[in-house]
């Protein structure tokens, strides 16, 4: 039943790590990579790639009330200029070659956020006799962050993007820790 000629583009995470922290000879290089990661994280540019219902909440996250622009996140229409692919919606078998082409067109370093239950595991459309969809984006792409919900609230997507920031900088930029610290300072 699957589209037969496409093989999965699965890149194991170990190959994709950007630097090796342990090596002393390239310690200076590691610091440079940390600085670059800081820069990358503060201007993550996602691709406008809404497939179904979750795309509306993704657009709402970019609008005036929830405002992704304050995090440096601007939506770019072309894959050649984007860092993050937010897979928002159900992936059907007909659409798989397109997603793979878009993924390959994005220059590295690049990340994937699977937004919504359909992109995580097929969502409400996954049942035993399902013929039309792929049960989750991680069957065809290396997913970094999963944002659950059907659809997730825009705040949920923002939390996912901030979690991606933490992942890219290996814990240095952690919005949740910052918020907790600010709350504790305010209480004192």
């Amino acid at each position, binding site marked *: 039943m699957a589209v037969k000629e496409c093989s999965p583009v699965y890149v194991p995470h170990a190959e994709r790590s950007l630097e090796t922290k342990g090596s002393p000879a390239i310690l200076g290089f590691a610091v440079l990579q940390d600085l670059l990661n800081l820069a990358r994280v503060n201007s993550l540019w996602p691709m*406008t790639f809404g*497939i*179904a*219902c979750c795309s509306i909440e993704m657009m709402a996250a970019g609008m005036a009330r929830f405002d992704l622009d304050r995090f440096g996140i601007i939506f770019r229409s072309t894959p050649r200029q984007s860092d993050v692919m937010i897979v928002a919606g159900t992936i059907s078998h007909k659409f798989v070659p397109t997603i793979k082409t878009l993924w390959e067109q994005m220059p590295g370093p690049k990340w994937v956020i699977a937004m919504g239950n359909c992109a995580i595991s097929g969502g409400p459309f996954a049942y035993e006799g399902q013929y*039309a969809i792929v049960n989750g984006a991680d069957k065809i792409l290396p997913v970094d962050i999963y944002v659950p919900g059907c659809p997730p609230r825009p705040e949920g997507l923002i939390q996912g993007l901030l979690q991606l920031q933490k992942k890219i900088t290996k814990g240095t930029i952690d919005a949740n820790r910052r918020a907790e610290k600010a709350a504790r300072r305010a209480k004192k």
Partner: protein
Amino acid sequence: MLNIKTIDDTSINERVYQLNLGPQHPSTHGVLHLLLKLDGEVVISADPIVGYSHRGHEKMAENRIWEQFLPNTSRIDYLSGLIYNQGYCMAVEKMCGIEVPERAEYIRVITSELNRISSHLLGIMAFVMDIGAFTPFLYGWDDREHVLDILERVTGSRLTYCYNRFGGVRNDIDQEFCDGTRRFIDRLRGRFKDYHNLITENIIFIKRTRGVGIIPEETALEFGVTGPSLRGSGVAYDVRKNEPYSVYPGFKFEIPVRKEGDVMARYQVRMAEMEQSMKIIEQALDGLPQGPIRARVPRFIDPPAGDCYFAFESARGAVGYYIVSDGTRIPYRIKVRTPSFSNLFVLTRILPGNFIADTIATLGSIDVVVPEIDR
């Protein structure tokens, strides 16, 4: 607009350029793929390729009991989720002969009209952004957030609702809901002045939309076009008036109709429809009766064997549920007639001969939601 009636394809073969508009494109409102054949900037033929969002709703319906198909209905067209919800419940109630209490009907109408307003806001503003106006997009979405707040208080969801049940609705509305809705209506009425200043009287918008993408009435009849795309071409067809259902006969509202059939006409029809929806909501809030919100219905229903077709009006046009039951708890066949399926096909007839920029304007004004086509 060029008037190219006869194009000899063989003579300009080397100039014909095939362009893929989509499936990933900021202005295709979902995963729509338009295969355009161009001669310079002029479109020779347009072939929409759909199916990238096919999730198998109709096959799922044959594997679910009647109640379990309710969440699917609001995901077919996620912008009019409550309206589709209501339509499915009414189709099954029609077949089973279930009577819905009057308060539940009024609540259904109020929530559906609020949903229609939010869908129109999104549809109009996304179309206007395709043409190039970014500011109204942000204003419209801000108003839409207010509607979503009101609906979230009573239904629990922002986008994909499952609020209607067979026999009524799930939760009751309270006084704060009614006050909030009235405040929102006053606010939106004030905002229309801003929208008209920004969009309707803007010379660039007028030049890009007047005389563009005309759907003649005969073409609309041949393709089964419904909704604002039809009302912009001079035909006053609205399921709420022609084939009334629920408590709509008790409300006074008009159907806005324009004669020109171009993109500007469809835009004006949608703006006027929002005003009519607000009128319906006000009348419904004024006349809201007391009483139960749900009829006593068995937990798992067994509709009698037979079939039924129920039509209602969503934000995009006339929707129909054709349900076939064999007397058991699991449906035999559910077919959803969606307006975007027919509305999109009209493009193959009206796009050739126009510029590619007019293609974007026309596509936006038809207001398609692609998962509705693909189901």
